[in-house]
């Protein structure tokens, strides 16, 4: 099996229902076995190109094509099976319920005889490093494992061209490395041509030999060996949101690093254990326990740790959305402002002004049909009256640069805009504590910088911030303290955590030893 050759001459595509073409005037020649990284700002048509190469853009019903795009001299839709595509969302690519069946799916579609299918499945799983039994349920896989499963499914088809559309965007750092190594291994073994779209250049820099930058206005901006293109276009790309190692986003300015002298404790946890209640059972199963933490106004705390240690569960419990499984969690008078000390007992409306939560997937929080109404939900639930609500909404629209989207449906926004909107909705009711679950997941550098700047402003205003995150840069830029969760000793055991000062003002993260402390002291 050799690599496929990709050629394009004057190629363009316009999606049905839109007035401007997504791609236009594209000329390309990619030789068999080459490894290419495709970059470009949002809207440059990178995804459209990937989908076209895989032959899944659709037919007359879905849009209009101009020019010519060929894989091995034939149209992509005529060479299904020669091209494999891995997409961004791990959950939307799993077809069947068992690992082996899912990998075999592609082979079945290509009419590979049964005797040949299962050896291919085994080979593909080995190539991506998924050492799991064939009957393992696919719903029990982590994000990184699901992406590797999708890759295995593609590899089992023995394609000549492997396309990856932001494969690591929704993965934690561990998953990112897993997937990258799996891709490298398999492409080296098979000699297939590789085309990757990603906005984290550092991950793929040493895997690819060639970088192509697409121009949103049509055609190609730059095309050549990795180092050349990155040094020539690096700055411009970084400004457009690509993560170029040499041009990192500027850290925010904090007026009062590590809190002001007027800092007050808002939430205290002592010996807290958190967990969820499984279906049809009464008692919660603890995932993390014996945690001590104090959240102080004007400071940012980061919760870090490997997958499965219960970070999200801890954040949701601290936010008053889940009931603690044990131990003691109490809001001080400064936060509770007249209510009882247990946040999970507060009414939903009372939470609005005290603790705001931003979920990992912004779409889970959308309730209304327009951005404006979405922002107004919080103030209206508080009974603030139309005039005050409208004022707050307009101020937020302006602050987060969502003015021009005020009447759009929230689901039609881009990823970065959705993230900004979900943060904005929480700010509309001015809570004293802000809890964020993976706020920088999958964000390009521009959105990242905006978010960090916004949070820095909030911290200066005296809001406390709690963030669950994998992102070390985020921790370095903002966090004053960090709680690191480590998996329990026994298998299935409960995670424990240790608090350390993160020293945001020093600009580096230096975790203290495993001693447990009963609170954080703003340094």
């Amino acid at each position, binding site marked *: 099996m050799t690599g496929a050759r990709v050629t394009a001459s004057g190629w363009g595509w316009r999606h049905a229902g839109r007035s401007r073409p997504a791609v236009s005037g594209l000329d390309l020649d990619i030789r068999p076995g080459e490894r290419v990284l495709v970059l470009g700002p949002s809207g440059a048509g990178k995804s459209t190109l990937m989908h076209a190469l895989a032959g899944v853009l659709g037919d007359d019903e879905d849009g209009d094509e101009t020019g010519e795009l060929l894989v091995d001299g034939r149209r992509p839709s005529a060479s299904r099976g020669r091209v494999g595509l891995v997409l961004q969302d791990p959950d939307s690519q799993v*077809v069947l319920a068992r690992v082996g069946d899912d990998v075999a799916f592609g082979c*079945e579609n290509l009419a590979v005889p049964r005797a040949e299918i299962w050896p291919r499945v085994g080979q593909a799983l080995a190539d991506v490093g998924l050492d799991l039994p064939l009957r393992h349920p696919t719903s029990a896989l982590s994000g990184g494992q699901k992406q590797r499963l999708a890759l295995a499914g593609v590899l089992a088809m023995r394609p000549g061209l492997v396309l990856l559309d932001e494969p690591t965007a929704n993965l934690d750092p561990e998953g990112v490395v897993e997937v990258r190594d799996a891709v490298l291994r398999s492409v080296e073994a098979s000699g297939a041509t590789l085309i990757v779209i990603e906005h984290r250049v550092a991950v793929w820099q040493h895997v690819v030999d060639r970088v192509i930058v697409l121009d949103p206005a049509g055609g190609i901006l730059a095309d050549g060996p990795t180092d050349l293109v990155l040094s020539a276009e690096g700055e411009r790309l970084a400004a457009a949101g690509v993560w170029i190692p040499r041009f990192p986003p500027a850290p925010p300015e904090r007026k009062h690093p590590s809190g002001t002298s007027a800092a007050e404790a808002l939430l205290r946890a002592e010996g807290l254990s958190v967990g969820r209640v499984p279906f049809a059972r009464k008692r919660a199963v603890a995932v993390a326990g014996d945690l001590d933490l104090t959240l102080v106004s004007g400071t940012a705390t980061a919760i870090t740790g490997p997958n499965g240690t219960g970070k999200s569960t801890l954040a949701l419990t601290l936010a008053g959305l889940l009931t603690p499984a044990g131990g003691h969690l109490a809001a001080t008078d400064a936060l509770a402002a007249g209510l009882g000390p247990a946040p999970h007992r507060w009414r*939903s409306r009372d939470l609005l002004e005290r603790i705001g939560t931003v979920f990992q997937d912004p779409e889970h929080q959308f309730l209304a049909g327009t951005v404006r109404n979405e922002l107004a939900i919080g103030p209206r639930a508080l009974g603030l009256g139309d005039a005050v609500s409208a004022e707050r909404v307009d101020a937020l629209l302006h602050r987060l640069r969502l003015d021009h989207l005020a009447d759009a449906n929230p689901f039609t926004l881009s990823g970065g805009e959705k993230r900004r909107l979900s943060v904005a909705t929480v700010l509309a009711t001015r809570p004293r504590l802000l809890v964020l679950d993976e706020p920088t997941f999958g964000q390009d550098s521009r959105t990242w910088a905006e978010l960090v700047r916004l949070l820095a402003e909030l911290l200066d205003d005296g809001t406390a911030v709690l963030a669950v995150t994998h992102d070390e840069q985020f921790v370095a830029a903002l966090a004053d303290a960090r709680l690191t969760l480590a998996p329990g000793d026994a298998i299935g055991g409960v995670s424990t955590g240790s608090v350390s000062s993160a020293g945001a003002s020093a600009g580096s993260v230096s975790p203290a030893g495993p001693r447990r402390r009963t609170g954080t002291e703003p340094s």
Partner: protein
Amino acid sequence: MSLMTPEIRPSAIARVNPVAKLAVALLISCALMLSIDWVSAAVALALEAVLLAWCGLSARQFWLRTAPVWIAAPFAVLTTVLYGQDSGAVLFGAGFVSVTEGSVALALAIGLRILAIGIPGIVLLATTDPTDLGDGLAQVLRLPARFVLGALAGLRLVGMFIDDWHSLALARRARGVGDGGGLRSRARRFGGLAFALLVLSVRRGSKLATAMEARGFGSDIPRTWARESVFGLRDGLVVAIGAGIAATAITVAVLAGTWHFVLA
């Protein structure tokens, strides 16, 4: 996520071809639906009870899964006793309500019928893996593969959204609209949640369709099957047992004179 993907213990019944199990459920349901009488329902129920030992479910799973049937039967009995067709001596009457010997007999028949139809349907399919069912439908019954696999993929996707439901409910609590209010606001919340799930599911469905197409799905090439679905002797035997139960129930009812053909 036990709703969609049952935990199937390895048992004899789990190895039977799902198409055979489907056929049994079909035969029994059709046979019992043709008449409303307590004899056919009781005979079928008795025979099914004997076979329950081989059903492959633990006691807890059995009662949990058949709960809908046990809830529904008493309600149906009650409704029929009060409002069913009347015949024979009147036992109690007030306005619309009239309890007669005839309506009581009918109610008994209805209750037994619900149990006799519902239980085998649930039990047989609770031990069926959806992928195996799909294989059986496409390979044994030769239903179009595109639709069977598309349906399977949809089933998997929606199974995921039961987890999403919890996240969405938590998000609503965080947005200040999670609780309070009477029936109307509860209904509106439920509607909002259901709609949000529908949106998420349709979007995921579109993305999954693209992924499936990228793996060669949907073309006109006849596909091969990695897992073979065989309809063998054992499966034929199971179907025969089902047919036997259906036939016995009908015969006994006809002989007892209580058979009352619905369409007559």
